[in-house]
């Protein structure tokens, strides 16, 4: 009896290993170089590779997270699991950074004196606070946003996205499996913003809305692999009689450009792992969009990826829009686009990434 244990143990563990190793995809296994071997990077690469490619990865991941959920944990990898949607745990932000980030905007405004607009978008966790698990601690974004707004100089006009979105809570304004807002959420804020910017918004009923994907699972799904939530719908908004795009040009940090024709939407993204890229295509430091409008209105947008699905609405009002990615270094973007050439400037970012964005901007200012 006691002797059998050892034989069973050895045979069974060999079977387990054979099963796991033969299901591990070793293609693309990191190759050691003299440099990565000597500074220890290779070890980290191998470990990261195995964490991704180990046999039965998804089942093992789900097994681990399910056990946590059964024992009473309400989140998977910093994402709260609720009945209706996945909600990200908000990073606690440094309140002291608010005046500093506002000062950066103010300096910018002092320098160019061009009409400047500012939108901070709250996360879904702020709007759907009541869905969060009991006692879950969360950063008060609403307050952070209003404090930031209060600290920017009076010349800069802001849009209270929090209240607009809160009043539309029952509508489909945030994806269930992704951190971003939906096109509809973006439209609601656009409506109010474009009014402040001196235009009349295109009424909602002028748009033809088509569902391009109904099985969209975004970044929150990717990090939790939690599949109990209904998949999301990606929408395309078409305005038949509206302004048409004449050219879209992407500028890259190394000085090269890419002509993207007249298409804003990137159909190929729908077949890729990152469907949200559909709205603005492959990320680039600057995207230059020209339309057939001849009103000589030129808009410069400093944005994070929340802006992507708002751009299709904005093109109805400008002859030229430059979309500058705030995650790229300001040095590069200043070289690509001189703010002085524009008639209006818009800062649009999610509150969640605003802190990192302005810190980044401060470094490269």
């Amino acid at each position, binding site marked *: *009896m006691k*002797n*059998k*244990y*050892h*034989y*069973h*143990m*050895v045979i*069974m*563990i060999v*079977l*387990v*290993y054979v099963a*796991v*190793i033969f299901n*591990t995809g070793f293609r693309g296994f990191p190759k050691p170089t003299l440099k990565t*071997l*000597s*500074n*220890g990077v*290779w*070890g980290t690469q*191998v*470990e990261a590779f*195995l*964490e991704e490619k*180990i046999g039965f*990865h998804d089942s*093992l*991941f789900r*097994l*681990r*997270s399910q*056990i946590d959920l059964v*024992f*009473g*944990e*309400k989140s998977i*990898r910093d994402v709260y699991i609720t009945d209706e949607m996945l909600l990200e745990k908000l990073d*606690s932000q440094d309140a002291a950074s608010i005046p500093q980030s506002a000062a950066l905007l103010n300096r910018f405004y002092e320098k160019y004196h061009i009409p400047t607009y500012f939108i901070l978008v709250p996360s879904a966790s702020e709007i759907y606070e009541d869905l969060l*698990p*009991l*006692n*879950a*601690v969360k950063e008060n974004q609403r307050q952070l946003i209003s404090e930031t707004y209060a600290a920017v100089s009076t010349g800069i006009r802001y849009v209270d996205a929090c209240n607009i979105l809160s009043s539309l809570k029952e509508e489909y304004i945030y994806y269930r499996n992704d951190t971003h807002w939906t096109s509809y959420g973006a439209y609601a804020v656009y409506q109010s913003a474009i009014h402040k910017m001196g235009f009349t918004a295109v009424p909602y009923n002028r748009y033809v809305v088509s569902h391009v994907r109904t099985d969209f699972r975004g970044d929150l799904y990717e990090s939790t692999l939690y599949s109990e939530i209904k998949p999301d719908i990606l929408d395309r908004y078409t305005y038949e009689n509206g302004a048409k795009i004449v050219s879209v040009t992407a500028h890259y940090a190394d000085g090269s450009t890419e002509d993207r024709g007249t298409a804003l939407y990137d159909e190929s993204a729908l077949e890729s792992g990152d469907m949200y890229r559909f709205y603005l295509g492959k990320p680039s430091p600057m995207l230059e969009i020209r339309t057939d409008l001849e009103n000589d209105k030129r808009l410069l947008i400093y944005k994070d990826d929340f802006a992507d699905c708002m751009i299709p609405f904005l093109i109805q009002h400008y002859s030229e829009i430059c979309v500058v990615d705030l995650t790229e270094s300001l040095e590069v973007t200043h070289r690509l686009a001189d703010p002085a050439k524009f008639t209006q400037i818009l800062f649009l970012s999610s509150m969640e990434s605003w802190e990192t964005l302005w810190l980044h901007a401060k470094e490269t200012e």
Partner: protein
Amino acid sequence: MYLSTLTFTLLVLPLTLLLFYLIPQKAKRVYLLVVGLLLYGFGNPLRVLVPLTYVLFDYGVGLLLKKAASHRFLSRSIVMLTAAFQAAVLTAVRLVSDGNREFLFPLGMAIFTLSGIGYLIGVHRKKHEAESNILSLALYLTFFPILYAGPLISYGEFQSQLAKNRHNIVNLGSGIGLFIRGLAEKVVLADTLGYLFRELRQTAPASISMLTAWLTVTVFSMYLYFELLGYADMARGLGLCFGITLPKHFGQPFMTSSVTAFMESWNITHIHWFQVNFRDFLFRNIRHRWTKYASLVLMWMLIGVWYGTSLQFLLWGLIIGILLAAEQFVLGRVIKRNYAFGLLYTGMSLQFAWVLLFTDSMTEAALYWKAMVGFGAGLADRFGVYFFTSYIVFLLISFYIATDLFRNITERVAVTAIGRKIASLMPLIECVLMIFCFACMLYKRIPAALWLQL
């Protein structure tokens, strides 16, 4: 390379074991030595110089001691000088390497120091011969399973086991089972507790509530226990696979009724080392009662500093030492008569002492103590309640494993028919545990060696 990584468990371990059993008997020792050095130098080949220096140093001093064997005073002086020198080097390196918590860093150095000094003292006290074959000594000092957190084994014991060639299917099977249990203790229990601990520590100490303070300390003590226990059991399992039975390093210390009983089940071989090579070696001839207490306190201060080179660790050692001395002096008799009091006193005093091991300064520790006695920011806060409700089941399970309070239930079940059924299913259970360990390793929420970065 850490033992609880996928790289090690999935790729390196099976390959190492397979080759070990395939190569001819004669080559096995050299093979183990080479594997040890390769794993040590993994990521930074120059680091191999560290163990090699220790081997050369200890080898040379060992031969010197052999020559001086007839001059007891000279021999004793050499041992004391070299021991003090090694301890000084270790302390200096730790102070320079900018961290007072890194008791494993540079990886294995603490173990090289302890094993080396133990070897030299053994030679001096004629417990074993000075080794004339440098390879044997090198294998002893660089035996890779124990480099992370022990357990320590004496030189004579190691060599006699090695000579018996005890690697066979029986030991391989038990070794794998033990390794899996150790891995589970580390990646299932310790890693979850470590994650929880790190989340709890995000509260600013000034605004901590009573509940959060107690939760933090409890989680920390159990985290530390399972982290060290896990590494020790992995080492014991691996040792067994190579035919070396390493001694038990931890018992089930929680819920004991005296600090003495707790520390008898805590880091057993390390504390035993200090007892033999420090206290017995230096104070053997001093029989006076108060001197004995003093040497005990002194030894624990040394253990504290061995855990981490800062004033707080020293203070921790001092407190434990004083408690142990007090128990020998008078407290022990009180506890014997009143078990409940013993439980309460042990739990309380240890909980307060643990605070010293994870806080960054005395002021911070004081804030935790203040909160623990109820003068912090209220009795409970949302933060603490959230984690308490999310992890209470997990904490209770961990606690059950860490205490021997309910041991008799397990023992009574073991002799029944169901118990025997379970025993025959053990290989299956352990294989499932291994699969779950894979799941935990890829789910990683905290770095493989959180304790080094606390």
